């Protein structure tokens, strides 16, 4: 059994359906990437998993069904979403942002320990911990959003377009940090990304979405070599 199992997921915004029956799985400790053009339903898939929109079908984490859960319950079940646009609490300090990420936890000592751990991994956040988070640069806010999600000690981390609006060198940094966290914490990740080349580099498997359906899936290597993916998303 996979860690995350999604079967025939349907959902959308009000009467307009965006997802027409998506099925995908993420195994323990694995990085899986979801590719697709604008409007393919990538972000909607993430929002459906996180419980932000109404959805039908089956989603389970480690056998536990999360399909009817509110967003905060999904977080409690062990899935954290790093939302597109980062979801920074602009007026709160960097440290308060991180503490909000631990909203579902009660273990004070463990929370403190995790703060220290993520300050070590993201030293720029440590330097700015008393600063209002809205004053951070885009790259720093992306790091903050990831660290905030990690404060929940999720079993599965969802990342929605972590490269959006960032300089190429910062994008590299974000992806290498994700790889490092995946390896060190054996944390499973499901990443939605426009930058297909970079995403396929760090993923072990990939899904290709088109208008709310999975049209192709396989190992990262096999998708990289598929003509369809190369023409549409890699540009060579």
């Amino acid at each position, binding site marked *: 059994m996979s860690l995350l199992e999604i079967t025939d997921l349907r959902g959308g915004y009000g009467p307009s359906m965006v997802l027409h029956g998506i099925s995908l799985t993420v195994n323990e400790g694995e990085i899986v990437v979801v590719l697709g053009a604008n409007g393919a339903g990538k972000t909607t898939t993430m929002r459906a998993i*996180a419980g*932000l929109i109404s959805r039908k079908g089956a989603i389970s984490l480690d056998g536990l069904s999360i399909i009817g859960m*509110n*967003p*905060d319950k999904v*977080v*409690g079940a062990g899935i*954290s*979403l790093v*939302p597109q*646009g980062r*979801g*920074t*609490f*602009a*007026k*709160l300090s960097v440290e*308060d942002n991180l*503490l*909000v*990420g631990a*909203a*579902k936890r009660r273990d004070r000592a463990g929370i403190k320990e995790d703060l220290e751990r993520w300050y070590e991994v993201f030293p720029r956040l440590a330097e700015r911990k008393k600063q*209002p988070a*809205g*004053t*951070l*640069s*885009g790259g720093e*806010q992306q790091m903050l959003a990831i660290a*905030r*999600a990690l404060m*929940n000690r999720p079993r599965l981390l969802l990342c929605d377009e972590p490269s959006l*609006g960032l300089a190429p060198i910062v994008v590299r940094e974000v992806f290498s940090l994700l790889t490092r966290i995946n390896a060190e914490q054996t944390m499973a990740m499901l990443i939605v990304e426009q930058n297909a080349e970079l995403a396929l580099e760090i993923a072990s498997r990939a899904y290709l979405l088109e208008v709310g359906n999975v049209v192709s899936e396989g190992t990262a290597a096999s998708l990289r070599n598929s003509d369809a993916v190369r023409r549409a998303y890699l540009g060579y």
Partner: protein
Amino acid sequence: MQVFLEYLFAGISNGAIYAALALAIVMVFRGTGTINFAQGEMALFTTYIAWGLTTKNVPVVLCLLVATAAGFVLGAVTERVFIRPIERKSLLATLIVLLGLFLALNSLDGILWGNQNYTMPSLFPNSVSSFVSVGGARLYWANLGLWIVVAVLVGAMFQLFNHTRLGLHMRATASNRESAALSGIPVGRILMLGWGFSAAVGAIAGILFTPLSPDALGLGEMFPILIQASAAALFGGLDSPGGAVAAGLLMGIVEALLSGYVPAIGGQLQEAIAFVAIVLVLLVRPQGLFGSKEVERV
């Protein structure tokens, strides 16, 4: 000097209740994004409850506690029943619902307690001789008590906001509701608590303020206070609890001094001061004295 001090004391007492209600308005605004027009009527309703209990010979302290708890429930239920299902539709709809609640509560007061005025017994000694003399002016215990309780209340609210986990979750919810939910905060419950606390603050303020003058408890008591408190909240910057409290006090004092020393304003034009303040603030500094323009880099 003596006259000045007497105006000043009256101003601080008015200012304290403006400050408390302005704080309540800001608490709701930060979470829900609307001004709770029913804030004053909620305070009036709970003051009536407290008064009703005093007529049954219940000790005033106990009346205060019961009415405060009732205020908390009233606020929380209002959020859950009237606001939550409507606010996602539109902000305007929420405002109309709150205006409706304003009228409904006022009518309910009328049905339950009639339209005559009552004198609310004070928590503190309140006879003609229970005052201390400060520079020749009389400072009544009831006034001093009001100041102290409001100060403690405001202090407690700031402690809650800035130094507790619940306060952090309230601030996060106010800052970015979706992100708060994605971090595991039960947003609905947090908003409900915020409304509950704000109505409880209003209840305490109403119960302490009403005894300051005889026959003050009546159907029209809270409306002018709500206007002043809204002006204070706006003046202080709608998202700044500290600003609301400072502006509330300031408005009370300025109003008392102006109506005392400028005969043309007197007791009649008092409320116009709030309107002038609202217009001036919106013209000169729309974000208020202490309100923040959102600083955000993307």
